[in-house]
């Protein structure tokens, strides 16, 4: 079973994001594999450990994303593909999915795993568009995955219960939280990851032209949160009275 994992490199969830001049300032940011993608990667490695085959990690971005591909190697991925684009921040989901679709043409993947959404932009579109472009089925928000040589069985949280999907292969599956607990890489894995080659494909060489359908005009930080207001009063009853008055007369919500 050959599995492809879509990896997005994102700022560490604890990183402080600074926006200036319409751009996210990248200096000093610690980059990580988007947490849902890490779950997808872990699942792929577990499937490989059970049934054999290979795991390939693919990522679109500038040279920095090779770090995340190396992390994927350290965890247990066998191959890595870097689709190189220096202005990748300006690409939309359609462009990224098109590039991946093109790059994997002629390669034999039966399962594609990805996170349900990137932890930075929360779009969650690339796997869906990739499915459309390839004509493969997509099951989103997996919380349990079983794969055999013919089909995939995917359990998904549903209103008040659980939905179970069966799909022929190839299939694209997106991982939800709780699917697994990603492993820590071993020191051996980290050391070996540095020596493994990464296949680099220039985005421009894929012959897609200007494929983005959305133009990003700029980034802006969210407005600072307004100061909270304290309701004063001599005792709880007085405070409650003042709160009710403010809600009715000033804010007009009751």
């Amino acid at each position, binding site marked *: 079973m050959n599995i492809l994992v879509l990896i997005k490199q994102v700022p560490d969830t604890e990183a402080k994001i600074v926006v200036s001049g319409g751009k996210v300032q990248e200096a000093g940011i610690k980059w990580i594999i988007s947490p849902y993608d890490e779950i997808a990667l872990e699942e792929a490695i577990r499937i490989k450990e059970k049934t054999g085959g290979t795991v390939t990690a693919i990522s679109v971005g500038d040279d920095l994303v090779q770090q995340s591909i190396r992390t994927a190697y350290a965890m247990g991925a066998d191959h890595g593909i870097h689709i190189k684009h220096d202005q990748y921040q300006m690409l939309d989901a359609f462009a990224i999915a098109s590039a991946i679709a093109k790059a994997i043409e002629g390669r034999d993947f039966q399962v594609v795993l990805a996170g349900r959404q990137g932890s930075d932009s929360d779009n969650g579109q690339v796997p869906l568009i990739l499915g459309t472009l390839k004509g493969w089925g997509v099951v989103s928000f997996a919380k349990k995955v079983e794969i055999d040589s013919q089909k995939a069985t995917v359990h998904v949280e549903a209103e008040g219960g659980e939905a179970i999907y069966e799909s022929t292969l190839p299939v694209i599956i997106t991982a939800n939280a709780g699917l697994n607990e990603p492993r*820590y890489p*071993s020191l051996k*894995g980290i050391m070996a990851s540095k020596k493994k080659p990464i296949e680099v494909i220039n985005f421009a060489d894929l012959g897609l032209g200007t494929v983005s359908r959305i133009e990003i005009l700029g980034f802006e930080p969210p407005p600072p949160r307004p100061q909270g207001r304290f309701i004063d009063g001599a005792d709880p009853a007085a405070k409650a009275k003042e709160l009710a008055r403010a809600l009715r007369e000033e804010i007009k919500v009751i």
Partner: protein
Amino acid sequence: MHPSLIFDMDLYHPKPEHKELRELVGTLGQDLLEKAARHYDEQENFNEELLRDFGRKYSLFGLTVPLEMGGHGLDATAEVIVHEELSMYDPAFTLSYLAHEVLFVNNLYHSGQDTLRQKYIPPALKGEFLCAMAMSEPQAGTDVLGMKTMAQKRGNLYILNGTKQWITNAECADAFLLYARSGPNRKDISAFVIERRFKGLRIGKKEAKMGMRQSPTCQLILEDCEVPEENLIGRENEALLHMMRNLEIERLALAAMALGIARRSLKEMITYAQQREAFGKKIYEFGQIQHLIAESYARYRASRALVYETALCVNPQERQSLSAAAAKLSATQMAEFVSRSAIQVLGGNGYTRDYPVERLHRDAILLSIGGGTNEAMQKNIMKDLVQLENLDI
């Protein structure tokens, strides 16, 4: 700008691998040690499975063992990084790591013949064998050459008799690197690998300790213990060199633990001093609190530089007893001072087990005793200094 960016040299990470190692171990410490440290301290119970996982899952044993033998081919700096990082979260667990990784694995690799390495290093690296080292005795600690445990050759066996004391990991160890007297002279010491299952070996009482409570410390009793002759490490009566050589890296690793304790204590007190208010001010605005924190910080930075500088020159090929003793003496006293200062800055909270600093302080005190007491370090430093030719210090 950080000096490493100017000089293309970083004392704390001479090679890129050192940075990655620190990052991995820091993450493991934070995620796997931090939450449980208090529990294991209070229960006086050892997280043995996690230490085995350090080999099984994270391949963190054999840092100084060459790649061909399944190790990482790294150096003393790598040991310092791991011991420093882990001690930020749990010094007691780190002490047990040290006993396995430094006192057994590093020592056996550098002192043992190939057959013994082939037999014991791979399972020790995988965590299948958890290991320990037995040198001290009830009547011989600092005076280690006063040891009484005897090894006598009988046929193709050595028969060992005696009692070993203060043996870290003895409760669960599968194998021991053990020193015993093997001739009439004070320096006639030999070293053996002794498996737990060998006839005549018994694990004695477990000590109830002030600190390092997670790390199990026990007596080891040898009554006509039968050891196959091939388990002699190197040659008869030549183990004093193994012992002295390994004590250098052990002292360095203990000094590194002191750095981790100090760094954590500093973080705790700096954070607390910025939050806690008294007399309408943050307490860091008081001169006496500034004194405690600033003094701690300056001493931490000085010891850290000394320990990492020493790490650059400690290796199996040359003797560095003077620097190793100085690093241990400096860092352990510093850690006692810094962790004690942290308790003071935190006031009543510092004295409770809800904050980690009282535990760090209890743990820090062991570092001034184990691996040679601070008095022994002072004695060794003086002995080395009077032998220096042109006082090139």
